[in-house]
């Protein structure tokens, strides 16, 4: 075949396979809590997850590629989640959607699993309580990058956040800026029902009420420093 480009194109076989995988992610939504609302918002027409090839939720784990663990997982639920994960055919990926799935969230009590990565390997953590649809889509794109560059992760915890370190650090900063701005505007909005008293203003310090949590926490600072070193 004669073309302007010389007739043929060389590539790696893995690259082609990964390319096809990343744009045909069949999802298994394991929805247990309020994060499901944001998942639905991200999947429905307004944000339209199908633009990224992740169109059809499959309610059989045999047909699914990505396990979305959306919401709080209790200890009573752990055998079920493990079974679902084991039933999925390789290659498979797991997304921890929101604070509860990632770390137990604010449920540090007798019943809740403190992060699904204690049970099954997780490829991607999406922060938020619940995450915004933009964050969900960003996470999905991040997973696609991960699939293209690294292929499927069979075993072990391989958080994308560490592999795509620079991108992720920028993302985290961006998320923080966006959420801070949004919260701030929401609080300043006189129509917002959060303001009950006239003349009551929130300082910026109010948002960073706890120095121990969030993206500016000592833990996150440490992570960022570690990423920069690498």
């Amino acid at each position, binding site marked *: 075949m004669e073309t302007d480009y010389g007739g043929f194109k060389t590539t790696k076989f893995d690259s082609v396979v990964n390319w096809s995988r990343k744009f045909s992610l069949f999802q298994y939504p394991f929805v247990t809590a309020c994060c499901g609302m944001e998942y639905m918002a991200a999947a429905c027409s307004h944000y339209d997850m199908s633009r990224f090839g992740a169109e059809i939720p499959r309610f059989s784990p045999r047909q699914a590629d990505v396990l979305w663990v959306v919401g709080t997982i209790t200890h*009573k639920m*752990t055998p079920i989640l493990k079974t679902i994960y084991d039933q999925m055919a390789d290659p498979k990926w797991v997304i921890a959607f929101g604070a509860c799935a990632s770390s137990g969230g604010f449920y540090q*009590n*007798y019943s809740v699993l403190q*992060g699904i*990565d204690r049970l099954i390997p997780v490829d991607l953590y999406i922060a938020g309580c619940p995450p915004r649809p933009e964050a969900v889509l960003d996470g999905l794109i991040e997973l696609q990058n991960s699939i293209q560059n690294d292929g499927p992760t069979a075993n072990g*915890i391989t958080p994308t956040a560490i592999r795509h370190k620079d991108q992720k650090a920028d993302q985290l900063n961006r998320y923080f800026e966006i959420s801070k701005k949004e919260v701030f505007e929401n609080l300043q909005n006189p129509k917002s029902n959060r303001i009950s008293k006239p003349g009551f203003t929130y300082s910026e310090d109010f948002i960073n009420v706890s120095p121990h*949590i969030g993206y500016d926490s000592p*833990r996150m600072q440490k992570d960022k420093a570690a990423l920069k070193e690498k």
Partner: protein
Amino acid sequence: MSEEISTKETGTPPETGELTTLLKQEFPDDVTDFHAHRDDETVVIKRDALEAVCRFLRDDTRCSFEIMMDLTAVDRLEMNETPRFEMVYHFKSLTHARRLRLKVRLTEDDCKIASIHHLWKAVDWYERECFDMFGIVFEGHPDLRRILMYDEFEGHPLRKDYPIDKQQPLMELKEVEERHVYGRHS
């Protein structure tokens, strides 16, 4: 300021509502305490009288409490109250459009109480929940086992002496790097 507290402070006798009067009249030996707050009456009765009082509340036309709204327990360990447990029953009457709160106090050593599942069917699962969370035994219940927690779970998580973050995993879990550097352990 609620009426309950104000009456306690001033020392005046608490307001007796219509239902309280009725119950005191019908069960003079069994009503140990009572108060009313904004027309919602609360009556504290002795444990052994529960079944008779509940039957009266359901069947008597002056009461007609058709609905058992809620049933739970309170662990008053950290309130330094004795006896330790307090059962709380909420009833609603559609006929008379009013509610009643019934309380029964149980000691820690002998936290058993008669089941009233034969009076209201809804009681069944509430009593199982209460047993699961507080370890209160409902005598006569047809199927008293855990309803929320799994069978392997030991103890009763809503008791105040249950360690607040003690977990009993069902599956073997992998240790991950500690993320909870903040919070109550720091």
